[in-house]
């Protein structure tokens, strides 16, 4: 299945992509989608989740279908709309600072 992913602008620049990207996965979970993103765009390794622990970086959040999925298990299936490509998985930088 093809999953759509929207990255924050700084990571789009780093990966040299415009707009959203798509990755192919067999089962749509945070882990499988981010594994596929990092395989396709290796320069993103370490920028969304930790190299070793694979934990989400503290100031990033994962949203889809207007829900915050950041604290879901990384192996929980993503919403059906994401798995079917009707909605993207959003990687969002926290509004931090003042």
């Amino acid at each position, binding site marked *: 299945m093809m999953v759509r992913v929207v990255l*924050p602008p*700084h*990571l789009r*620049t*780093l990966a040299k992509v415009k707009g959203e990207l798509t990755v192919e996965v067999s089962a749509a979970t945070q882990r499988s989608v981010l594994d596929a993103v990092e395989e396709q765009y290796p*320069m993103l*390794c*370490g*920028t*969304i989740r930790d*190299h*070793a622990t694979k934990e989400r*970086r503290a*100031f*990033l959040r994962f949203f889809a279908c207007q829900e915050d999925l950041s604290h879901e298990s990384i192996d929980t299936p993503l919403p059906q709309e994401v798995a079917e490509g009707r909605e993207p998985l959003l990687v969002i*930088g*926290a509004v*931090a600072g003042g």
Partner: protein
Amino acid sequence: MSGVRVLVGTRKGAFVLTSDGKREDWKVEGPHFAGWEIYHMKGSPVDPNRIYASQTSGWFGQVVQRSDDGGATWNPVGNKFAYEGDAGTHQWYDGTPHPWEFKRAWHLEPSLSDPDTIFAGVEDAALFRSADGGQNWQELPGLRKHGSGPHWQPGAGGMCLHTILLDPSDAKRMYIAISAAGAFRTDDGGETWKPINQGLRSEFIPDPTAEVGHCVHHIAMHPSRPGTLFMQKHWDVMRSDNAGDHWTEVSGNLPTDFGFVIDVHAHEPETIYVVPIKSDGEHFPLDGKLQVYRSRSGGNEWEPLTKGLPQENCYVNVLRDAMAVDSLDKCGIYFGTTGGQVYASSDAGDSWKPIVRDLPAVLSVEVQTLP
């Protein structure tokens, strides 16, 4: 005709400033990596087109960029800095043990002989090396696992390894400095390390003459005299003439000996430069007057250099990696400020002018003298 390329890392991107050998007219390119903190950029001494940049962000972590065409285009290389073995703990600000955690690369030092080999000084303090142009990084764990490692404590800016000096006369000798552990030397290519802090005195630590624990801000060396080192400590300007085995204070007549930068004239190994800063509590020049001080005697006797620098209402800082020299005749001196100015002198400091005035806060300045 020869020329100069100035590599400027700022809080919000990288800038490349170029001029011919006259150093009068400058072309400013950037920002590269807009919006990211660029802690440091440095070119390979053996291939000036090869430049490395440390790009960091509180959101996205560490990226290392490499240019193979003098800074015109860039590509990300490896950013995995994994401590060797069990990372262990160091001391936190309150004295409790705190796990070693990678935060960012403060300083990148390309090898003197191989453009693909580069050293990285990182926070939490450790030294890494890449032998493949920055694709893969391995820690040199002998430093961090020096017996004193568990007692190192961060300075106010974090526990950073910020200075790396490679000895041009001895490929196995290297100096590094850590805030706030102090200076260390290896004589065996990084396998083992020796603290070289004898003679330093820091009143703000429990034992002012401790073997480690000193807040060294920067160290400079002239390549023709690699055994002579000049140090800007938190307070005190110091020199060593025996490869760091012992230091003596050379603050002399400086109006304040607090500061961050120190550098050496390209052709006169006893001519050194500092930018005095009022105090550790007030990180700006004395009386709002931005002054570089030059000593032509390797310290102790200092003269203020003010021509072209603001002499009123100036309250910027000059951070530890934000001064560099070119090797043209006359020697050019460059420094950047937290107010976004990059000042240049093409006459060894006698007079100054800003190359640019309104960049983001400058974190680092390096210079390449081009053929």
